[in-house]
């Protein structure tokens, strides 16, 4: 037996040895990035703005604490509170910074002798100290101004990049124009009809997304073929299992379709959200009327394209009086339903995913902790979750959302109440998820490998992560995907009742609400299409959860074949 079946080299060394396939893949990826550079840059700008907003909010915390303390206890107490709050915030930041950015231990570098527990604390104190110095520099010295200038210059640069044309942009394949008396189209892409131009743009968007996916897959295959240490790893089996899992593949396709729809909402909509949904009276367009080419605002045009029962309606796949194409028809107030749904997909997905992820994280963490420590930790969690479960959930959600919105709480303003809804759903939903995985978690905690881990000194946190969490993950995926559907339906229901995401921000539930009385008329599409989309999306997430669960469980192997321990390989 040779000593070196697997040469122990790092990925970097392996790529340096044979760079050609990696470079080829990278070149392709670059081309793809360049095609959509503009959109990417605007996305980055958006993320940057959000980050700035969040950081600004956090930075204002010490000030507000100081204010409230100073108003009751006096100025000096306020200053002390200010300092303490700053320290606490920087301490939390220090944990993140240490975890994300500093892979080595400063304590060892500095040669400080202490026991392990003390070392961790000393380490955090040092990082906090460094952060305090950095924060003081930014706030008190001209360094802050310089930093500010650098950031704004960077932002301007990225914004300029964001203005570059992209392959999926509306300007490249415009679908808004008017028909001249001779039947030809003016203003659309290559003189095609708006319907065809719109379909073309949607096709380009999905094609681009699919090419990206294919290219990523190719990248994985390149890695597997040229650079991976082992010829075979268990992940290969997981992927093969998933590829043959048709229900899971169906879910994946549905979820990808929705993700693409949400991410490229501005590109797949026949009209822009600004013009069609938010400020219809401030955006005008041209149409060919009785007196030739005329100009009208979207708002005025919408008035004539309303779908209200059988008297006036613009149905699926049809044009309105102003030559605007509506693939899903129009709303009760004449706005384009497809645009509404595409932007609504963003809202639903963001709220749904945020709430579900928060819920799942809370439930998993609690399940691990209660199963590992049992006893009092378990009891306290049981009491807390039972208290929450015993309240009617939907009423609680309704109450909280009304309360926060009426009070104009700052949280309620972020994302038009979306963040608030996500937090409320997560806060009321985790007990159900925790209940669902508590049993499996307790079962795993009784396994001998937990004892084994303890016997060689593995820390409780790592034991939970490595030896317990994978066994809960399968259950969690299923239950989380189920409750994702629940959250989406819940948000829709809230909007349906008029309390969820407020108009004009599009939300699927509100479309169902608005269209419910026209369901038996030619305007049936207003309620039906969003309803079908909700069903599809929820089913898709459930199917994807099923597929992933089966794929990551090595024992679910349907074709128990040659992979016995006696076989070769490796």
């Amino acid at each position, binding site marked *: 037996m040779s000593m070196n079946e697997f040469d*122990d080299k790092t990925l970097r060394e392996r790529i340096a040895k044979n760079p050609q396939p990696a470079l080829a893949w990278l070149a392709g990826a670059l081309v793809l990035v360049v095609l959509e550079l503009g959109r990417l840059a605007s996305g980055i700008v958006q993320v940057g703005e959000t980050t700035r907003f969040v950081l600004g909010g956090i930075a204002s915390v010490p000030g507000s604490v100081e204010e409230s303390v100073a108003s009751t206890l006096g100025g000096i107490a306020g200053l002390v509170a200010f300092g303490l709050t700053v320290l606490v915030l920087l301490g939390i930041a220090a944990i993140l910074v240490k975890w994300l950015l500093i892979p080595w231990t400063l304590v060892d570098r500095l040669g400080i002798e202490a026991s392990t527990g003390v070392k961790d604390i000393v380490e955090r104190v040092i990082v906090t100290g460094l952060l305090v110095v950095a924060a003081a520099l930014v706030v008190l010295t001209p360094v802050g101004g310089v930093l500010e200038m650098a950031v704004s210059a960077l932002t301007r640069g990225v914004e300029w990049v964001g203005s570059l044309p992209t392959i999926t942009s509306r300007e490249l394949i415009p679908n808004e124009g008017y028909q001249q008396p001779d039947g030809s189209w003016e203003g659309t892409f290559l003189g095609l009809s708006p319907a065809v131009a719109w379909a073309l743009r949607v096709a380009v968007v999905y094609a681009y997304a699919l090419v990206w996916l294919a290219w990523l897959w190719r990248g994985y295959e390149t890695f597997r073929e040229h650079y991976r240490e082992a010829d*075979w790893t*268990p992940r290969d089996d997981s992927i093969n299992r998933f590829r043959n899992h048709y229900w899971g593949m169906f879910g994946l396709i549905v979820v990808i379709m929705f993700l693409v729809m949400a991410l490229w909402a501005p590109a797949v909509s026949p009209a822009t959200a600004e013009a069609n949904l938010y400020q219809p009276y401030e955006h005008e367009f041209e149409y060919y009327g009785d007196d030739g080419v005329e100009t009208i605002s979207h708002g005025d045009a919408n008035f004539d394209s309303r779908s209200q029962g059988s008297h006036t309606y613009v149905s699926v796949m049809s044009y309105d009086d102003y030559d605007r194409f509506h693939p899903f028809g129009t709303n009760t107030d004449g706005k384009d339903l497809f645009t509404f749904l595409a932007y609504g997909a963003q809202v639903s997905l963001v709220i749904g995913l945020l709430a579900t992820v928060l819920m799942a994280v809370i439930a998993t963490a609690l399940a691990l902790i209660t199963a590992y420590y049992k006893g009092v930790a378990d009891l306290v969690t049981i009491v807390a979750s039972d208290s929450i479960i015993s309240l009617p959930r939907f009423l609680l959600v309704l109450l909280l959302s009304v309360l926060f919105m009426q009070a104009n709480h700052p949280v309620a303003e972020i994302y038009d109440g979306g963040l608030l809804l996500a937090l409320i759903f997560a806060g009321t939903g985790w007990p159900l998820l925790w209940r669902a995985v508590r049993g499996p978690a307790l079962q795993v905690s009784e*396994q001998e490998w937990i004892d*084994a881990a303890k016997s060689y000194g593995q820390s409780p946190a790592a034991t939970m992560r490595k030896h317990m969490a994978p066994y809960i993950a399968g259950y969690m995926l299923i239950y989380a995907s189920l409750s994702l559907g629940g959250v989406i339906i819940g948000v829709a229901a809230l909007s349906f009742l008029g309390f969820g995401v407020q108009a004009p921000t599009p939300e699927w539930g509100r479309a169902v609400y608005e269209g419910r009385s026209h369901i038996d008329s030619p305007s049936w599409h207003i309620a039906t299409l969003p309803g079908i989309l909700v069903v599809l999306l929820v089913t898709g997430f459930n199917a994807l959860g099923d597929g992933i669960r089966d794929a990551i469980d090595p024992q679910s192997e349907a074709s128990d074949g040659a992979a016995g*321990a006696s076989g070769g390989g490796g």
Partner: protein
Amino acid sequence: MSQNAIEANATETEPQAGSSQDKDVMVKVRDLRTYYEGNGLFGGTPVKAVDGVTFDIKRGETLGLVGESGCGKSTLGRTLIQLESATGGEIRFDGTDITTLSGAELKKWRRNAQMVFQDPDSSLNDRMTIGEIVREPLDVHDWKTPRERRQHVKELLDTVGLQREHYYRYPHQFSGGQRQRIGIARTLTLEPEFIVLDEPVSALDVSVQAEVINLLEDLQEEFGLTYLFIAHDLSVVRHICDRVAVMYLGNIMEIGPTEELFTDPANPYTHSLLSAIPEPDPSAHKDRITLHGTPPSPRFPPDGCPFSTRCPARIRPPEYEDLDNDLWVQLDTLREVLRERDRAEKSVTDRIRELLGKEPRFGTIEGIYGELFDKHDVPADVQEILDETADLAREEGEIAALDRLGEEFGSVCEGYGPESDGESEDADEPVAPEYYTVSPSGRRSLCHRHNPSTNHAEPDQVLDERH
């Protein structure tokens, strides 16, 4: 059977007190107790899983630990490697009392002591590859570089008789014996000196058992390991162990060199245990000692000697010495029934019915008496006491009845001080048995019968007479 007891050095609490032997001693356990607290929030009576155990383990030896299920042997093993925290007593590991360690020191010490678990299906995390499983202890202790760790793990897989390619496999692709080898490889990664083997072969096929046992013996020789071998398979213990400790209800009943203990047991419990080994020769005649009833609950161990409720060689009061053996069995059963009734309240009569092998959902005292004594010739004086007992049971409850029976039929074994010895009547304190050294090799046994200051017969004589 030879008379072996050397009763001169009686009442020794420190085994092998000679300081010259201390150098060999690796683990010193003194009066170790591990109690499990009650489930309720407010405690309750603890389960005394290990209740005052004292012994030494010498460097490089294999100490066997045998006993019935539930006698506390696994708990003792788990306490030795600090998977359970001790309630009292101390465990000295090369001089350090490990029951006082915590945090980083405990983690550091854990490298020295590892454990092989009983169930290979449950001791390996199915979601990790063999390589990850075996490497994890190294990762935890930050052993050298990742590359060296991988190399080391592959060598270890080789050592325990697996192939290096198995590094990337999953546990479910292996058989029970192979999985146990993986578990053994994991315990070896940190190069410990002391390994607790908790029934390492009892979940395996017989053919595989031999392979794993041989592997363990080879590894002991190669790495100079010290084993604590927990088992209930006595033939395996006899094969692999240098010394054996016999456990019953949280106590060590007898401890000594394996061959000596197997050929010439001193303690009545060891006698009964050994008599349960099946003989491969069907024509061989063997006197099996049948123990009556079940072991008492470790939550409520009996006063005096832990084995007193079932001991076939229990010391009987001299005034009843001539009572029929069968009648004694019935009297013991009566006491056990009363104890069960006292403890079970009205709810669990099943066990009583089981004891009687009979129908009554809730046996009355008359019913029990009829069941136990109808077929026996009960002498008048005994009958008198039984009647008194029945009255007490009806009027004042089981405890009073048990006290009466104990006063009359109990002996030093059940904690009743010898009546002749007037001064030691410390009314409430039951007399506990002591260890007596019963052979020149330092074998110790927990039984009043070895006490040289009284003239009780040795257990083997009594057993010969009674069975």
